[in-house]
């Protein structure tokens, strides 16, 4: 069973991602902050993480950098409501970071799911 860490400070948004992926038989772990997510990663090893960028405390980018630092074998998919966001260059170099940047609201969950699966394959 694939597992997915959903990192988003917006509860309703996080829950909607979780609901969808669970319906599609994913094991979903939710985290409200990057700090919380990093703590979870100490214990669990999800296949992928869906990361919001603007977060209280450590932001999404920093979280991904931290996670990559820990050499966790997992995929990262960025999803943000910020229109001017671009994936930083250092992150783009990593194969396990999806080149596709999903903007909220995500209208097409299927496409998101496909990208997550794709990135997991790229990461492994």
């Amino acid at each position, binding site marked *: 069973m694939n597992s997915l860490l959903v990192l988003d400070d917006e509860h*309703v948004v996080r829950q*909607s991602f979780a609901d969808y992926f*669970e*319906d599609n038989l994913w094991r979903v772990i939710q985290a409200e902050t990057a700090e919380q997510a990093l703590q979870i990663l100490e214990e669990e090893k999800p296949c992928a993480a869906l990361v919001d960028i*603007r977060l209280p405390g450590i932001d999404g980018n920093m979280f991904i950098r931290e996670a990559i630092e820990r050499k966790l074998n997992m995929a990262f998919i960025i999803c943000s409501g910020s*229109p001017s966001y671009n994936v930083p260059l250092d992150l783009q170099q990593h194969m396990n970071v999806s080149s596709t940047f999903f903007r909220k609201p995500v*209208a097409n969950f299927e496409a998101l799911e496909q990208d997550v699966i794709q990135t997991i394959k790229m990461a492994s």
Partner: protein
Amino acid sequence: MSQKRIAIKLAKISVAIAFIVGLLLSSLQVYRDYTQEHESRKEVVNRILQVAERSATVSVHTLNEVLAREVIEGLFEYDFIQQAIIVDDLGATLAEQQRSHSNDSKTQWLTSKFSEQYEEYSILLYPLGLGVGVPGQLSIVVDVDIALGSFFSRSLIIFWGGIVRNIILTLLLFLAFHLVITRPLIKLVHELKKINPEDLTSQLQTPLSHEDDEFNLVIQSANDLIDENHKYIVELNNKNKSLIESEAHLKSLITTIPDLIWLKDPEGVYLSCNHQFERFIGEKETDIIGKTDHDFVDKELADFFHTRDRAAMEAKQPTSTEDEVIFADDGRKAILHTVKTPMRDNEGQLIGLLGIARDITQNRQTEAALHTSEKLYAKLIANVPGVTYHCTCDEFWTMHFISNEIENITGYPASDFIDNKRRTYVSIIHPDDVQLVDDAVQSKVQKKLPYTIEYRLITSSNETAWVYEKGQGLFDENGVPSRLDGVIVDITERKNAEMEVGKLRSYLSNIIDSMPSIIIGVNKKGIVTEWNIAAERAANIATNDAVGLPLRKAFPRLASKMKPIQTAIDSRQEQKDKKRSYLLSNGELAYEDITIYPLIANGVEGAVIRVDDVSEQVRIEEMMIQSEKMLSVGGLAAGMAHEINNPLAGMMQTANVMVNRLTNKKVQANLDFAESIGTDMETISNFMEQRGILRMLNAINESGERVADIVNNMLSFSRKSIDVYSSHDINELLDKTIELSSTDYDLMKQYDFKSISIVKDYGNDIRPIACDSVKIQQVFLNVFRNGAEAMQEAGVDLPEFKVRTYFDAKDDKVFIEIEDNGAGMADETRKRIFEPFYTTKPIGVGTGLGLSVSYFIITENHGGQMTVESELDAGTKFIISLPMSNLSQ
């Protein structure tokens, strides 16, 4: 007496003629008589011989001497037979007789003149007429003188008769001449003798019975002659009388003439003189005549006079001298101008010397004064700043005087022109002006008015000199203009300056006319003085009509500006009224800048009004303001987007999950939970469907999408873009956009984009350009969408896009043109097409941001340009240009 001589002469001539003619006629008759006489004599002799033949023949053959004698005696009956002889056949004389000769014939001398004295006739006597045998012979000798006796007596009568007849004729003729000619002639002479030279009034009488003949003619002619003579003499008398009178006049003239007149013979003796001369000598004429100069002046002077007189007499022509003399009578001094003329008779013999002397003292003084004034005058003329002249009014303007100033103007000395010596004045007039000068002068002079002309002269160095000429005609006694007097002034500099001014003026007016601004000059009273082409167009009044009109009439829109104009003039400060709005005739609002410049040049009071149409500028400015507004909206949107997007995501994504859970039969959880509550997915989705839950969820989704779109579009106004510009092939981007368009949901919703034919004309020399491909595609998509809608709206049967790209090397720009064949748009729409929220569509359809965003992307984000060309019913063409480099960022 002549008349007698005429009669005798006539008689003599007629008698001589009658005599000669009579003699000739008588001689002719005598000659004729003679020839007849000669013939008849021969005949008579032959007949006599024939008569005697037979008897003689018989006598011969019978040798009958008696018979022979009888024959001969028979023959001697004729007195003219001198001798007869009959000879027999043997030659023996049978009978012979000879008449004794009497030499007393008085006509013998005459006969011998034209004939022999004797003629011999003989016949041969053949026996019995047989004509054979030996004949005998009968010979006779005829005495011609006797035979001609009767002829002579007849001739004598003829001669005498003729003489007598002539004498009678002569006498009769003489009588007749006397009666017919001599007597009337004598009468005529008597009549002519009656002519009295003193009294020629009487007429001659025609002799009686000669009224119809030549005498009458003679008398008439004589009468006519007398008449003529009479008239002539009367005339002569009259002439004589007037001659005497005129001689008297002449005499008094010579006497009273102020000149001294005298006449000397070749020896110097005075023959005549007049009163003035008397005064000079101091003697009376009677005392002067017959004397010489030696009698009046001392010897030395008299000798001097005499020597001069001799010289004058030898000269062929009159000689003149000038001397200062003293009048003897009053002792006054005078200068005499003396002309001495030698006088000669018809043979050229010198007969005297005529002297005429005039007192020219006064003249000399006048001349001296004149000379002084002339000098003054010449000096004056030399100082006149122009050429003075005096010329004949002819085709050459023949100069009689022209001042030296002409050399300064033309380079030709004045003497060249005097009497056309080296050149005529007309020859230096510019060929194009010759007629003009002639016309101008003639037209004025005919009216006896002074003339003024400006024309060109060609100088010696072949340059053109402008001159001003003023003059007037001098007229002879018949009023015909004979001479012209005038002044010519060099005005080349003035003319050049004038032309320069003219050139400058037209240059300036060209500049003013070529300006797009309306430029109107007004004077202090607000009357239009200047009106350029832009003003003509704007007010629809031609310059000629506008100048002179009050401004409020010529340009009613500016009527309210009279006060600012006054202020500008008074304060000498420019007045401005910017972006003044006014309504066009089509109801649209237009804007103009009005600037009033006071004219502060010396002597000119007025103002120049400049009106510039700034409608376009105002519109662009308004658009810029709008863009600025949008930028701040964009900035705001960027800040807000995250905050809006998160709740929006919560809402929309949750709705999505809801739909998934309510309808997706593939999700195991759905099936499991449905079963656990005793139902199935079929029932649930049926319920949801029937109750419109899915539709509602869909509405949530769509509304959320629209919110997301607006936020995205508003974000586009944000100048701050952190997009990385990468190189893209514009043609490829276009192709991608076209492909995308055909699947565009919104477009598909309206109509099938695939039914639009797309004509591509891509430049193949376009290098990849650095741009934000997504945004550029968004622009293309917006343009295609706009065009597709326009074509659909217009209901075009064969909708078509023409897409053209090309590279402009000069500006280093790529041009993209997208043209549709839709309804096009009116000017007002075209001008506002890029304004944010401007839309021609009904409210609710479209946001009115599409083209505005596109404009913004091209101009602000990419430093390019975006324009539109369109006409109503003629399609629309968007032109986008992107710089290859030098982005505005």
